[in-house]
């Protein structure tokens, strides 16, 4: 794979975005592979958004929200969990490698966890190689 | 003089045509029979009537009208230049193995797209670079009614070649000089008198297979009857089951409505023309929210009145070739023939 993979990150504004921000301000080293899209809540994520990213040629999609039970809007991520799990299970049926999609929960204080996840996921995507734009 | 070719030589002939032309031929594709670009050696199916008509070869479902490109000079960021270039689809093409009803469809397009009104440059370019090899139709389906709308299953005056199958052999008549150039001497044999007689018999047998569901009468009288039936409550009744989908329009050899939209990719892009369907509820929906044909019976009425009235008034042509595809493919069994009969009798 040439250079860094292209990973699209859909991040909840209240936890994960702050967590990623914290990783940055704490100077935690991480690959520059994730392009972050900031959303009010993972509950806002229409499964078609990550799906379109994958269909249009993103190498990977990383979705991160508040831990279940900690949603700023009480229940957004609980709906999201069901939808994203379904998306994850559906992808291989249309020929998309499910390893290209990952959804995780990262809180505002978990800068280090974010660093680890991005590193791990980037490695995983590098192993899979460049996605074909469909 | 007509020539003949054995069935097992057809692929050799097609391979030879395909070396010089873009070639369309009816082929089986995963349970559907489609007129598709020919790949050398691939089996063709001359006994099916492809699900889509031959219009797609001359009026593709998606067609680039023009390409545009914005240019920016970095030293003058406030200025943008624009250039556009029109598409020119001038590839030499042969449409091979289509039934006479589909050839009539192409003649119809000539009337509407390159007739007295505005000239459709793209269709004109494609048509003038295309030769048509038709085949006399011996496999009329239960939905066929070409004779009722003035057609014939066994003659295609606007084609360049006409094939007629006799057992395992095809008699090929050249109808134009250009058509004759397609006949590859090495593969063909001369045709004796007896075979010509056999061909005649085959054609007559094909004629007798057809049903004639209605007597049309003169074109102006048809146009008049449909116009008079505009306010008839029958339209609502006849289309109650309609789903407002695009099947009947997309499979139709004469439906030509289209949409024009831009497809942008950053600083450049294309203007596309794609098939549209007058049966879609959003087809005439205006930005204001007003829709002159909001209810499905209005859309169906417009579709049929267009074919059986407006086109006669404007172009002196009937918008139906009797191929029966709309009847066969309609998911809710709306039968055009019975609606025409009803309007003619009303």
């Amino acid at each position, binding site marked *: 794979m040439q250079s860094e993979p292209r990973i699209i990150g859909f991040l909840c504004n209240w936890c994960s975005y702050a967590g990623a921000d914290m990783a940055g301000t704490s100077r935690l080293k991480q690959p520059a592979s994730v392009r972050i899209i900031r959303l009010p809540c993972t509950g806002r994520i229409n499964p078609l958004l990550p799906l379109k990213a994958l269909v249009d040629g993103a190498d990977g999609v990383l979705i991160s929200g508040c831990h279940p039970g900690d949603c700023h809007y009480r229940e957004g991520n609980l709906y999201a969990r069901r939808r994203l799990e379904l998306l994850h299970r559906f992808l291989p049926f249309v020929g998309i490698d499910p390893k290209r999609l990952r959804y995780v929960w990262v809180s505002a204080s978990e800068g280090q966890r974010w660093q680890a996840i991005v590193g791990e996921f980037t490695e995983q995507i590098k192993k899979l190689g460049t996605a074909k734009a469909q | 003089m007509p020539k003949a070719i054995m069935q097992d030589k057809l692929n050799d002939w097609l391979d030879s045509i395909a070396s010089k032309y873009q070639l369309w031929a009816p082929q089986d594709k995963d349970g559907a029979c489609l007129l598709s670009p020919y790949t050398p050696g691939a089996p063709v199916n001359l006994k099916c009537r492809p699900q889509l008509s031959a219009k797609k070869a001359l009026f593709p479902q998606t067609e680039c*009208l023009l390409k545009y490109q914005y240019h920016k000079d970095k030293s003058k960021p406030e200025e943008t230049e*624009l250039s*556009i270039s029109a598409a020119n689809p001038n590839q030499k093409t042969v449409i091979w193995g289509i039934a006479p009803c589909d050839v009539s469809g192409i003649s119809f397009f000539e009337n509407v797209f390159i007739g007295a009104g505005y000239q459709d440059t793209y269709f004109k370019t494609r048509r003038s670079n295309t030769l048509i090899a038709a085949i006399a139709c011996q496999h009329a389906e239960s939905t066929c009614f070409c004779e009722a709308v003035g057609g014939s299953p066994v003659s295609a005056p606007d084609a360049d070649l006409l094939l007629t199958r006799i057992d395992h052999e095809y008699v090929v008549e050249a109808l134009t000089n250009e058509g004759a150039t397609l006949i590859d001497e090495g593969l063909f044999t001369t045709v004796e008198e007896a075979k010509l007689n056999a061909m005649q018999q085959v054609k007559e047998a094909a004629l007798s297979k057809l049903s004639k569901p209605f007597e049309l009468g003169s074109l102006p009288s048809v146009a008049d009857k449909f116009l008079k039936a505009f306010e008839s409550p029958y339209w609502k009744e006849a289309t109650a089951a309609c789903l407002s989908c695009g099947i009947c329009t997309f499979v139709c050899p004469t439906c030509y409505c289209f949409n024009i939209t*831009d497809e942008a990719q950053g600083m450049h892009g294309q203007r596309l023309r794609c098939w549209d369907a007058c049966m879609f509820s959003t087809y005439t*929906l*205006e*930005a204001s929210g007003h829709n002159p044909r909001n209810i499905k019976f209005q859309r169906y009425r417009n579709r049929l009145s267009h074919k059986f009235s407006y086109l006669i008034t404007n172009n002196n042509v009937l918008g139906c070739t009797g191929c029966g595809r709309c009847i066969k493919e309609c998911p809710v069994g709306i039968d055009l023939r019975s609606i025409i009969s009803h309007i003619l009798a009303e």
Partner: protein
Amino acid sequence: MITNGKKYEGPGGNPYIPMLATVTKLYSETPNIKSLHVVLDDKEQMKHVSFEPGQVAQLSLFGSGESTFVINSSPLAKEHLQFTIMKTGEVSGAFHDLSEGAKIGLRGPLGNWFPYQHMEGKNIVLIAGGLGLAPLRPFMFYLLANRHKYKNIQLIYGARSPGDLCYSQDWTIWREHDSKVKITLTIDRDVPGWEYKVGFVPTIVKEEAPSAENTIAVTCGPPIMIKFVLQELEKLGFAPEQIYTTLERRMKCGLGLCGRCNIGPKYVCIDGPVFSLAELKALPNEL
């Protein structure tokens, strides 16, 4: 090349291809209506620009699409073509976001026009609502330039509020025109400082009661306004042959080919947009 009453040929004889043009001026008429001045990039073509009052053109914003707009500058002026665009959909919205100097495409003129020759020697009443004044604007310019050929000219123009009236600088000039053009302005509901009429356009038509005697009425506006204006005109004794209107339909090609703008056998894009009420009454009722 744009020429009088001829078909649009298009570069290379292809009527789907627009001529390139530049937006030279862009300004707001109302909060959601903007006018723009358009100049063809080919200076020779611009010099020979000619269109008739009521004709339309297709404006392209490459990447967004193409839409039909009426040419509303004076048919006698050659410096630029003017269009007025209300923000409603994708293309019109994109036009609102343009800035001066933007590159666009133009196909036109297309369609028919007001049959001004048949109206000579008659009184003319123009009745417009909101942006419906746009197609009547070039016609008014034509009438004023040929003032001696026509008798009384009256414009009844209304909008929801004073801020929704378009072309305010024009009707001030028209009103002060020394050749007796009567301008009647109205708004739907009174606001402080408004010194003209108050009421819906059809009501004002009733009030003004223009005589049907030797008069042609031309109306354009929202469908509901047109409907009631027609009723008032008929009550005033106007025959269908004395009433003209200009129609809007969803259009794509502007060439009578794409199929969506028909009313019966007539296409609004090539047989219209101008129709007399008599012509409309002969068509299937599918407005």
